[in-house]
């Protein structure tokens, strides 16, 4: 695991800010440009530290897979935000040409092998990619991202059993935001109901299970990094439970065509009437928290932090403008046989 020097720390802060700003632009699109985004979007605001801390551990040739809540990973990996926004707007120059949309981003050129829109189903795929890394024998690892809800799926349990059995080089990163849409973890998870962390599930598969503050990018980096080092050495998988607080609702409202879409308030408020929980999460927002920490330890001058914020602001202005101006795909492109079959 590499030491995090000041340049790297500032890089991490910048990526966190880019993810945050991008997600806020997605959310604002529903108000500023009604009808431009269709279907369902899921935002990573609140999970930036977890995403960036995890991805900062990646070495050349490492790969990852994720879920439908997938905007943050390619942003941190360096995929052009113009192409990501254009994909979410269903445009021709989108990352996936408008074939996938918000839930199905993929950029294999940067090791991002893809996502599944179905809860838990990307976990065995990431596990298979880890078998591939083991076959290559070059010390590469796979990061498999999923949510707490997925840990109630058979796919999770089957995959962890196999990965441990075969000592596959994978780090399972469970981003635990404590809500399955609007159901709280303790309502649907036996460990949570008994006051235990969800990482105890790892014990059933004879692998280490660690819980980390997913709002602290350095803690995530160190935890995922140690797990990745272990995997690189052939010692097998680790389950990392990264505790995050999703700062937006699960997704935009679900409604038939013609009904304007928007983001409702967080389920803590809309379902449970617990505004204090949500406001406490806002007070602990990982992005300003990390900025303050870097400024305090002298890694980042406040003026430089403001400059970065301005650069990110301009980048996302450009992403939205590009996506709005980009044409829609030709309808006939839907029938491209070479996309149906390789």
């Amino acid at each position: 695991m590499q030491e995090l020097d000041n340049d790297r720390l500032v890089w991490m802060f910048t990526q966190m800010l880019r993810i945050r700003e991008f997600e806020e632009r997605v959310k604002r699109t529903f108000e500023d440009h009604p009808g431009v985004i269709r279907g369902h979007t899921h935002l990573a605001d609140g999970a930036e530290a977890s995403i960036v801390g995890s991805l900062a551990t990646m070495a050349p040739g490492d790969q990852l897979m994720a879920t439908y809540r997938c905007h943050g990973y390619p942003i941190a990996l360096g995929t052009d935000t113009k192409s990501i926004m254009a994909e979410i707007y269903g445009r021709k120059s989108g990352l996936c040409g408008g074939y996938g949309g918000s839930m199905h981003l993929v950029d294999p050129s940067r090791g991002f092998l893809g996502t599944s829109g179905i809860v838990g189903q990307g976990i065995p795929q990431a596990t298979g990619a880890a078998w591939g890394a083991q076959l290559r024998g070059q010390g590469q690892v796979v990061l498999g991202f999923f949510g707490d809800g997925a840990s109630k799926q058979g796919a999770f349990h089957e995959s962890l059993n196999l990965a441990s059995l075969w000592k596959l080089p994978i780090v399972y990163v469970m981003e635990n935001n404590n809500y399955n849409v609007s159901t709280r973890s303790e309502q649907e998870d036996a460990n949570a109901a008994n006051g235990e962390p969800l990482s105890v599930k790892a014990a059933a598969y004879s692998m280490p299970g660690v819980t980390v503050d997913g709002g602290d990018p350095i803690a995530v980096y160190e935890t995922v990094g140690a797990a990745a080092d272990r995997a690189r050495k052939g010692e097998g998988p680790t389950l990392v439970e990264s505790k995050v607080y999703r700062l937006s609702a699960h997704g935009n409202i679900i409604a038939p065509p013609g009904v304007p879409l928007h983001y409702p308030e967080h389920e803590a408020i809309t379902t449970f009437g617990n505004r204090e929980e949500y406001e406490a999460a806002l007070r602990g927002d990982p992005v300003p928290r990390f900025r303050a920490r870097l400024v305090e330890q002298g890694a980042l001058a406040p003026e430089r932090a403001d400059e970065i914020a301005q650069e990110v602001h301009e980048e996302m202005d450009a992403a939205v403008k590009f996506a709005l101006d980009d044409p829609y795909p030709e309808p006939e492109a839907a029938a491209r046989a070479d996309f149906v079959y390789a």
Partner: protein
Amino acid sequence: MAREIPYIAAVQEAIRVEMERDPSVVFYGQDVAPSDEDPLVQAFGRERVRVSPISETAEIGMAVGLALAGYRPVVELLMAEFMLVAMNQVVNEAPRLRYMSGGQVKVPAVFKAGYGFTAGWAGQHTGSIYGMFMGFPGLKIALPSTPADAKGLMATAIRDDNPVCYLINYLLVLEHGDVPEGEYTVPFGEAAVRRSGSDVTIVATGWTVGRALAAAETLAGEGIEAEVIDPRTLNPLDTATILSSVEKTGHLVLVDQGTRHGGASAVIAAEVAEHGFTSLKAPIAQVTALDVTVPYSEPMEAFVLPNEEKIAGKVRQVLGEAPVAA
């Protein structure tokens, strides 16, 4: 050089030859080579040949991930119904990922399973369930009916850059036939004309190909010359060969071990009804399994299945319904 070997040995031979040819091919599944003495383990090592737990979602999902990472997995699933346990990976992941990525990724994976084991295995291990897979663009389906095709279609499935359901008819595993040695492929989407004839076209799949050929011999004794076509793959489907045969014969009987509704023969019937209607001198007829769960008891099991007599009878009926030529 061809020599006579059983269908099941031909399947295994294809996997072995392709593993020798391409180091990215891996083979695993339930009860695959649990012994280190297994010839495939001896030849290719435990890195590439593994026995897996009874975890279909993980097994098939891992094949998708291996394929995304540049490998060519062959997953042994034993019974086609076991794919139903992991249906999301088979139909909603593997065939969709390329399209949803805008052509950025490919998923070259083979899902190998047996089907149609109507030999007293009752309702949950006997099904000819491939009809449902035809509704998922991106997913190819191979149904070998001869030992040579069993080898050649498996080799093609492994080399194909798309997910393939490679389905072994368990009633055929001990059938012997000439199989070429060494590398041998059979192209997807090219039907085989198993018997030429000018009076009626019979399209049959898998185990029913042999039943249709037997019926054709009986009919030949009555002066009826049937052409028997085996599509070999249902996706891609060689409709051109079927349509040109119907153009010649004017009559079509479709035979399939699967159910009638939502089945393979219904899809073929629709294609011919739309694109070959003017060639038809009589309505298309289907000889499928009945729309019931396959029963255990032998007389009932036989009752629901297509057989030689039902095929011959349907051909006579179709020809009898035809208007008398001037």
